[in-house]
């Protein structure tokens, strides 16, 4: 049987999962603070816009959003399989297309800032 092409998706899953493990909780916390009306200064329009305008900020946005998306896509593919949705090839196309679309949009919005 031919060797699998899953490694590429698995490495994105693993990278995204590691990044999400370290960063997702605190990012959710920061957004939660904003949701409770205590918007941290870094989340204000001026500061966040300046951050996104800087190359380092762009790198952070790109890395976090896209890796989270590819992590979620691959894990969702496996999870749907576990839940009994067995048409793996079709599910894979859908989830990876969504992640790819998200990647493209991230770049698009970052370029505009």
């Amino acid at each position, binding site marked *: 049987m031919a060797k699998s092409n899953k490694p590429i998706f698995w490495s994105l899953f693993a990278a*995204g*999962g*590691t990044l*999400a*493990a*370290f*960063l*997702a*909780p*605190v*990012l*959710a*916390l*920061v*957004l*939660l*603070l*904003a*949701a*409770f*009306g205590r*918007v*941290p*200064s*870094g*989340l204000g*329009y001026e*500061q*966040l*816009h300046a951050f*996104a305008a800087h190359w380092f900020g762009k790198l952070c*946005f790109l890395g*976090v*959003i*896209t890796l*989270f*998306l590819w*992590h*979620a*896509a691959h*894990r*969702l593919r*496996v*999870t749907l399989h*576990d*839940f*009994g949705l*067995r048409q793996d090839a079709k599910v894979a196309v859908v989830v990876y297309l969504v992640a790819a679309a*998200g990647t493209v*949009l*991230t770049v698009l*919005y*970052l370029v*505009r*800032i």
Partner: protein
Amino acid sequence: MSRNPYVRPVSKTGWWLKQPRYMRYMSREVTCIFIGALAMLMLWGLKRLSEGPAAYETFLASLRSPPGVLMLLLILAFSVHNATSWFNVTPKAMPVQIGEEFLAGKYIVGAHYAVWLLASLVVLLMAGVF
């Protein structure tokens, strides 16, 4: 004597309800839905950010809604679950051999928790929380 092996059927959808360890596994797997949701939320925020201050304000306002708060609470809970379950298994995937011994898992796991704390503090600092 004739052979007639019997294959026991397995539920393709409900197998994970049969054992607590399978339910724990599923609880880890579904964290991806909330990581994905967080990514999409941030993407949405980025879009609003690129559209100007007024548009960005609508994004912040949407966070303040009850569904927004609920979603963020769920995202927080599941992302913590992802983090702890992820850190706890890293020694299995990357064993560190030193001479004839292996580095005890607790050091590798401990190092991850330390980095987690550090990274969280850095982000909080950068966000101006303190």
